[in-house]
């Protein structure tokens, strides 16, 4: 768990945050015209991307422990 925490604290991981924000907002804006539905869609997209990439992160982290 310490290794996982250290990995999360590594600054490289945080470069993904502005990307998720930007991608989800732009994607939401191409699906809707009004601010509220755009933000709602963007929130769902951001959560989905974070979970998807978080899953890959954990799998790779476990593999790195095993190898």
């Amino acid at each position: 768990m310490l290794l996982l925490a250290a990995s999360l604290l590594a600054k490289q991981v945080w470069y993904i945050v502005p990307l998720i924000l930007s991608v989800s907002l732009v994607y939401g804006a191409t699906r809707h015209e009004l601010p509220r539905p755009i933000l709602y869609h963007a929130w769902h997209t951001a959560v989905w991307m974070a979970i998807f990439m978080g899953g890959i992160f954990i799998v790779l982290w476990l593999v790195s422990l095993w190898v």
Partner: protein
Amino acid sequence: MATSPPPSPEPPLEIDLRDPHVAALLAWLWPGAGHLYQRRYMKAGLFMVCILSTYFFGLALGEGKVVYAAWNAADRRWQYPLQLGVGLPAAPAIVQSLVVRRTGQPMLSALGAPMAPPQRIENGLPVNLLPEWHKTLNMRFELGTLYTMIAGLLNILAIWDAYGGPVIGEPGKERGPPGDDKSKDKKKAA
């Protein structure tokens, strides 16, 4: 996961796309400009802020070196066509590439020769600076390239939105592709 209830269905919208071809061209030239032309100010601001901040953040991460145009045996920069999706902000790379090809040296060397390809002619001999760039910038070269590529790809979505309108604009009024006559009628009539 979601903390707020789903928003109520969007009311019928009136979206005047004006001339979609002009809007698409403007949207490519400068992210958000096509939407400004269509008077969709909120989305223009959103696209401009999101796409340009992503692009310039990536460019700054790579110290201006991650956006360049090169296609030769030493370096096939396939990322550049994707970066060119942001339009004019990536266009100086083409100028730099032409200048380097003609003179062997880039413009604005005092400023770090932004957007110049890594190939140079020094003392009559070709020099490739790419390994040095990777060494000095390390992961920031890759991250900067990634950010600028994603910005270009995001602007392609924005161009499509300027050309055809939002994909889910009006519940119960699903539109066809932009060329579809019915969809045009709905957009104009709306």
